[in-house]
């Protein structure tokens, strides 16, 4: 079994694959219990109860933020909470009497978990969409037309060497610290590398096939869209799959720096209270999302584009 490339029976292969997960779980549980034996209030390695509480915190509605509201005639604490959250069950969050005309800070209730997930996924989705769009356009043009390649390759190759997080401040300066900036950093972060990848794939297509297409009567436009683009499509999807790694990094980083919602934002916020339980939940959730998207892309490639040998 330990000669190079020797095969392993599939049952054993499966067990081996599961083993590290089991090991991690066991080691963590043991370590966590040890710490809790010394200090029952330990927060660094949350036990099951703490994690359950963390889940409860992010899933059930809790105070997300506050809003200033002017108290009107007939308002009570309950009705104020109602107006904003639509759920009077949590009106006890508002304490004391209210006076008409007074400015009151009223809590806004939300499910962090969903709110953060949608905020992050929206930024990721838009950022990827724009970045991928730019990359496909430029990469294809460069890969197909030599003058365009000569023009753009040096600058794209140079820009690709800049760590995208280093230009994040530039983006913040120009776009502020709101949504557009986060989408931009993802788009600009993944684009250069993807451009170079698509460029290489397009150039890798055998010249014989291009010549052949011309001899069958294709115009240049047809060669690009009926010969080149379809052949690079599976690698293109794979490049998207690979770009998701860096994209998540840019997302989390930009949310950590300047946001008011999002998976990365929440992680950094609860870090200040050593909220490891919430952090672990969010990290696991990000992992699940990542695996899901990755699996969808991988399966699409192998099922619909079996003719391509894409790794």
């Amino acid at each position: 079994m330990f000669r190079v490339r020797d095969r392993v029976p599939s049952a054993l292969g499966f067990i081996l694959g599961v083993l590290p997960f089991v090991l991690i779980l066991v080691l963590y549980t043991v370590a966590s219990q040890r710490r809790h034996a010394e200090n029952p209030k330990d927060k660094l390695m949350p036990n099951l109860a703490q994690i359950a509480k963390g889940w409860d915190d992010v899933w059930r509605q809790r105070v997300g933020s506050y809003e200033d509201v002017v108290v009107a005639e007939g308002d009570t604490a309950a009705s104020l909470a109602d107006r904003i959250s639509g759920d009077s069950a949590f009106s006890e969050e508002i304490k004391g009497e209210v006076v008409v005309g007074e400015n009151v800070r009223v809590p806004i209730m939300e499910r962090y978990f969903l709110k953060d997930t949608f905020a992050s996924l929206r930024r990721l989705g838009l950022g990827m969409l724009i970045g991928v769009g730019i990359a496909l356009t430029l990469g294809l043009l460069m890969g197909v037309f030599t003058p365009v390649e000569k023009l753009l390759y040096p600058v794209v190759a140079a820009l690709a060497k800049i760590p995208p997080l280093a230009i994040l401040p530039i983006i913040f300066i120009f776009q502020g610290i709101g949504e557009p900036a986060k989408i931009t950093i993802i788009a600009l972060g993944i684009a250069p590398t993807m451009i170079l990848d698509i460029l290489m794939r397009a150039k890798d297509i055998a010249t014989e096939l291009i010549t052949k297409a011309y001899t069958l009567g294709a115009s240049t436009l047809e060669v690009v869209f009926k010969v080149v683009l379809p052949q690079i499509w599976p690698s293109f999807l794979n490049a998207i799959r690979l770009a998701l790694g860096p994209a998540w990094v840019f997302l989390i980083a930009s949310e950590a720096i300047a946001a008011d919602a999002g998976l990365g934002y929440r992680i950094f916020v609860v870090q200040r209270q050593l909220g490891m339980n919430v952090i672990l939940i969010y990290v696991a959730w990000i992992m699940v999302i990542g695996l899901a998207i990755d699996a969808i892309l991988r399966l699409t490639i192998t099922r619909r584009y079996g003719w391509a040998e894409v790794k």
Partner: protein
Amino acid sequence: MSTSATTDEKPISASTSASAWVVEADRAVQRYYDTRVRRDRTILNEIEFRMRPGEFCSVVGPSGCGKSTFLRLVLGCERPKAGRVRVFGREPKAPDRNRGIVYQRYSLFPNMRVLDNVAFGLELDEVNFLMKWINYPSYRKQRKIFEAKAMHFLETIGLAEHADKYPHQLSGGQQQRVAIAQALITNPSILLMDEPFGALDPGTREELQRWLLEIQAKEGTSIFFVTHDLEEAVFLSSRVVVLSPHYTLMDNPNPEGAKIVADIGIPNISKDDWLHAPEFRETVDHILDTGFHEDTKLDPANFVRSHSDSVPPRI
């Protein structure tokens, strides 16, 4: 099998006026700048050649002598540095539908099924580029016609059962057959072939050779066939052209670049008879002698010119 609705240049039957030659090379020269030795290297040194429609002409010669370069000049991928190459009187500016090509590798588009590969040329001809997106039902109707034509073609070559397969699922011989069908369906004036059977095992190669002969006999296609296999060339062709750098000139005993040192006509008898005739062997040996030995140095006056269309030596 002639299916294209548009009129491409059809082979003109034979008068010997200049534009009736399907291929002409008029003192064609090809040179490349060799960066290692920092000067031009001549590959083709004043090639003189003319070919009538309907011929099966093979080009043979030692490795690296410029056979593929000559083919690229006819195809239009390259322009000669001096002299002219013409196809039906016109100089090829770039590869286009008048000259079909079959390569040794990368014969088919890997992302399309066999049927789509064969139908590819038809769609390029007739379908407006955006029709697929603008008027899908009309596009589908056209598509059905092309697929029917392509299917018919596949049936005549016995590959109909593979229509839905992808090229990587086919054997080498099957791929080459589909590639030839793909090239012929658009009715080019001439079919160029660059060692198309070189990567196949001998049994498959023989099968495909006979099959190609059948098609050529049926369609009367002009074929320009580059190969390094002398027996293949002598068997298949009506004319064998030997390109070789081994010759001598009056003012230059060691010239650079290949010339056509032999232009041999093959008797028009049944291929089975020809294969077993003693002249077959003799012709192969003759070709070996004229083009392949470094010390055989013919001068242009003594080049072999046994085909009726061979270009006579210049004074």
